[in-house]
């Protein structure tokens, strides 16, 4: 247990991310219509919703990767709405995009080493390889030559190195085999133990359910429901209806 983790222990419960009345646009089209939610330190929350609900866009908006935003996004006490994109990660944020974004001009290992470390206490290369043996095997091959799933792992693994404290993960289980999903689940648990804060956009509810402290349900660019792990069993039906499962 690193003291980095300890340091975060006692800060548990403090607020890591606060989003207020967030609107986001892609050019003309208005995607987010006032998103409100906050995440406490060390917490793992999920953003659930149907396709097109705006979950990915929410993460992109937090990273300032969408066309235009209004409202307020406070990370670790800093208002970031006015920040240039490259400053945001330096607040200790790690982002794993939906479309993975593996670099074909770099080999697997270069991909892993690419993101600048933003904080101390990130995972070491060995720890990562231990966690994802496939990557170790293919470490010398071009990033995009990996299979869909391997790429997903790489995208995930990449940000574990940077020592980010707040992870924004978009559909990390998409197209992954169940075994890998289990592995990833365990990874997330480990990360929580290390005191990381995680926002998880998930399609695969079975994967998300056991991990999350709270679930936010999105629809049409808004948060329409918040369900805590505790009340989950009782409200499962309601949730399914929301997700149309």
């Amino acid at each position, binding site marked *: 247990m690193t003291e980095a983790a300890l340091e975060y222990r006692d800060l548990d419960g403090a607020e890591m991310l606060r989003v207020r009345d967030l609107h986001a646009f892609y050019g003309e089209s208005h995607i987010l219509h006032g998103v409100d939610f906050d995440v406490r330190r060390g917490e793992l929350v999920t953003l659930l919703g149907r*396709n*097109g609900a705006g979950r990915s866009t929410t993460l992109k908006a937090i990273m300032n990767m969408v066309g235009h935003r209004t409202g307020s996004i406070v990370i670790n006490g800093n208002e970031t709405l006015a920040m240039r994109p490259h400053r945001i990660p330096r607040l200790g944020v790690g982002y794993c995009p939906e479309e993975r974004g593996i670099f074909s001009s770099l080999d697997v290992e270069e991909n892993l080493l690419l993101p600048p470390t933003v904080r101390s206490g990130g995972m070491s290369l060995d720890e990562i390889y231990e966690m994802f043996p496939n990557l170790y095997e293919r470490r010398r091959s071009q990033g995009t030559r990996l299979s*869909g799933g391997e790429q997903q792992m790489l995208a995930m693994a990449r940000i574990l190195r940077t020592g980010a404290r707040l992870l924004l993960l978009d559909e990390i289980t998409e197209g*992954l085999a*169940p*075994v890998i*999903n289990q592995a990833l689940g365990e990874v997330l648990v480990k990360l929580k133990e290390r005191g990381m804060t995680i926002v998880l956009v998930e399609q695969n509810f079975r994967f998300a359910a056991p991990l999350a402290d709270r679930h936010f349900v999105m629809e049409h660019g808004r948060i329409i429901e918040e369900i805590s792990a505790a009340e989950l069993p009782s409200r499962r039906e309601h949730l399914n209806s929301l*997700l149309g499962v």
Partner: protein
Amino acid sequence: MTQEFVLETRGLTKEFRGFTAVDDVNLKVREGHIHALIGPNGAGKTTVFNLLTKFLPPTRGEILYRGKPITGMRANDIARLGLVRSFQISAVFAHMTALENVRVALQRRLGTSFHFWKSERSLEPLNDQALALLDQVGLKDYADVLTVEMPYGRKRALEVATTLALDPAVMLLDEPTQGMGAEDVDRIVELIRRVSEGRTVLMVEHNLSVVSRLCDRITVLARGSILAEGDYAAVSTDPRVREAYMGSEAGETEEAGA
């Protein structure tokens, strides 16, 4: 033994700079089956698709369609034979409407696709057919929407509709449900079931409930070669498969499936 197998590979192998992605695969797909190709990430599923549809040249081995070798053919000719694929990452014509997307597939049948002196309007007779197909995948209301503006899940559905438009004898679907909401998944599953009447479907799929619900036969790939083959029950109980692939989840999915 030729005819009952629509699609057959003999010693199919693909190497990328020394790395063997597909290793001596002998795949046999029966006429009329829904055949699943499953396996851990990187097993070589997509590569197999690319080889079958000639998007990649095989390093070794041959491919037979209805007993005839097609190993030497060009990708678009393969498609003309009735062997049509979808892609793992959605492939649509972004700046065309959903309707036009489907119509482009339909129009090939008219045989006028090189007629640069004909009017576009000569295609409008195809519209009803196109709409019908869109309807099948629940995209009727999107007919006039530009594809860029559709959410990811819808794009996948549109892709299936476009594939259907060719009325292929064999459909190769690479993870048709990937990144879809449960709702859409069910629709697609139903759709595949429906359209598989009178055709053969070969699909890569991770969503086991889908596999269990749909497939007559399953081939499990691991590290590029066939690990096991059989129907769902057989495969899912095969210890090697459970270990290599399904992990503990198999049980649950059966419930989910049932």
